[in-house]
């Protein structure tokens, strides 16, 4: 039975939700707004919400000074590549943990997740040494690998939760029907897990796109993605808020658009299994 909710309470919760939403969105809004101001107006006190001179100059300067497309392309390759590679590794891993669990499966999952609690800087030195040794510094392949490994625990964990929802009977039926392991995963498990896999992919693209620690530390010019592009505008020769904002807006625009169009899928994926 639906619980009766008074109109006043409905209005209050709606207002609260909007307030929280706006609070979270405000920095993004402010960044976008600032990107259309002149440098002087950008640091004006009190801050200007309106009445400033609308200009596209910052975008033109940013595009002129640095090649946005090259950074974008690096971001696409690193985020897409690490996610794809991660899925390829994680599907069989999650399959075995979900359907052929051992006594240690839970421990392994927890241990994997616990690696996310380790501060990244703690392993910066060894990873840098490995990168130097294998000539991976400032390469897209090196960065793709590192980011894939960083996000792998989350991919495996998410897929594991989705796979657990799939009745084992159906996989056994496939086995009885003559499907080998490869066919079972390819024709039965994967199509059934598509919603889960899709939201895992989306979330990981977002995580990889926003990853800044490793991209900033392990790249210079060749493999630098959009995070490095933004960082290059918080330069020591003085802060240029308007240009920094323009660069940030350009960097977050693709992922913002992707997130906007896939929000239904994302929410569905993240709450999958919570409500039956």
């Amino acid at each position, binding site marked *: 039975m639906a619980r009766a909710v008074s109109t006043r309470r409905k209005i209050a919760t709606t207002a609260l939700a909007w307030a929280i939403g706006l609070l979270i969105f405000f920095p993004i809004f402010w960044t976008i707004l600032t990107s259309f101001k002149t440098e002087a107006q950008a640091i004006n006190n009190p801050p200007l919400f309106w009445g400033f001179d609308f200009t596209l100059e910052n975008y033109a300067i940013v595009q002129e000074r640095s090649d946005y497309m090259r950074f974008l392309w690096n971001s696409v390759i690193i985020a897409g590549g690490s996610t794809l590679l991660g899925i390829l590794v994680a599907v069989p891993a999650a399959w075995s943990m979900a359907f052929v669990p051992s006594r240690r499966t839970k421990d392994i999952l927890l241990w994997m997740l616990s690696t996310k609690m380790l501060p990244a800087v703690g392993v910066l030195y060894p990873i840098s040494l490995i990168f130097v040794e294998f000539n991976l510094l400032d390469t897209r392949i090196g960065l793709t690998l590192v980011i894939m490994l960083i996000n792998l625990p989350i991919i495996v964990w998410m897929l594991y939760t989705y796979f657990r929802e799939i*009745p084992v009977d159906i996989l056994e*039926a496939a086995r*009885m*029907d*003559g*499907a080998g392991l490869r066919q079972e995963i390819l*024709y039965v498990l994967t199509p*059934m897990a598509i919603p889960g896999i899709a939201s895992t992919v989306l979330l990981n693209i977002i995580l990889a796109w926003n990853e800044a620690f490793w991209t900033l530390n392990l790249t210079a010019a060749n493999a630098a993605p959009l995070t490095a592009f933004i960082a290059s505008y918080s330069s020591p020769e003085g802060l240029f808020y308007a240009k920094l904002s323009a660069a940030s807006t350009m960097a977050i625009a693709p992922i913002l658009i992707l997130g906007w169009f896939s929000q239904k899928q994302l929410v569905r994926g993240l709450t999958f299994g919570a409500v039956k």
Partner: protein
Amino acid sequence: MGRITLDKVSKSFGEVEVIPPLDLTIEDGEFVVFVGPSGCGKSTLLRLIAGLEDVTSGEIRIDGQDATSVPPAKRGLAMVFQSYALYPHMSVRKNIAFPLRMAGMDPAERDRRVKAAADVLNLTDYLDRRPGQLSGGQRQRVAIGRAIVREPAAFLFDEPLSNLDAALRVGMRLEISELHNRLGTTMIYVTHDQVEAMTMADKIVVLRAGNIEQVGSPLELYRNPRNLFVAGFIGSPKMNLVNGDIAARHGAETIGIRPEHISVSSDDGEWHGKVGVSEHLGSDTFFHVTCNGIPEPVTVRVGGEVDLHYGDEVWLTPDPDHLHRFDNQGLRIA
């Protein structure tokens, strides 16, 4: 061909032995039912035959060939699950065709077989639907269709009717029996419902705690249960079991008498008691009579026209020719 032999097959999960070593032969073309209370190991036994579980020791032979370590896909058996286990993302047509596709059969032959199976199972109109758009009975028929097309050496059914409502269950029971008569293929059927076992089986295997209690035709088991467990499990309503002095008078620890082998009289008989609850089925009536000296009410089956009411005093007399006697081990006394 589908002759299945289990030779000292056992199964343990860790320290727990769920099936102690057992021997069993299922002849080609037989309809064998594994029956027993839940947790008796009947589903595990079926899964061992299917290859979905590994045996701990012993050997499983299919048509004389050792199949103990053959993967399920290669055993040539088809299984129908309690949950139907259809592929939700495929149409009925693709579900039924799936095993043929896995076998690499050419699409034309595949299509022909799917159509033939759909025809037999009245699924022709539903071939392009998804499982989610079908009723429980239709889903179960798709699951059976998926099993038929493969022309397996034997069919394995794991409580296939448990999720259906009572009326549908009776209908599907007949359909499966009809299918068995038509195909003549070995069928192994697991159920906890002794009515299904009695009505469908050529041979019933009664299991308790992983042990085979008795193997035989339904009527053999009904007429000559080997021990108290089988006596109490097979037959509905259950056999009346009486201990104590009354049993001792017949030279047994426990005596058993089926409800239809007790005669009722209003003035004379062996046991005196009062009529309790009565169940009128139309053709038959079951009276539950509380008798002096017998702790459990005695169930009596009489014709539908017998007119007795709650509280009436009656005399019951068990038919001596149909009296089952059991010793203190619970075993039948010949």
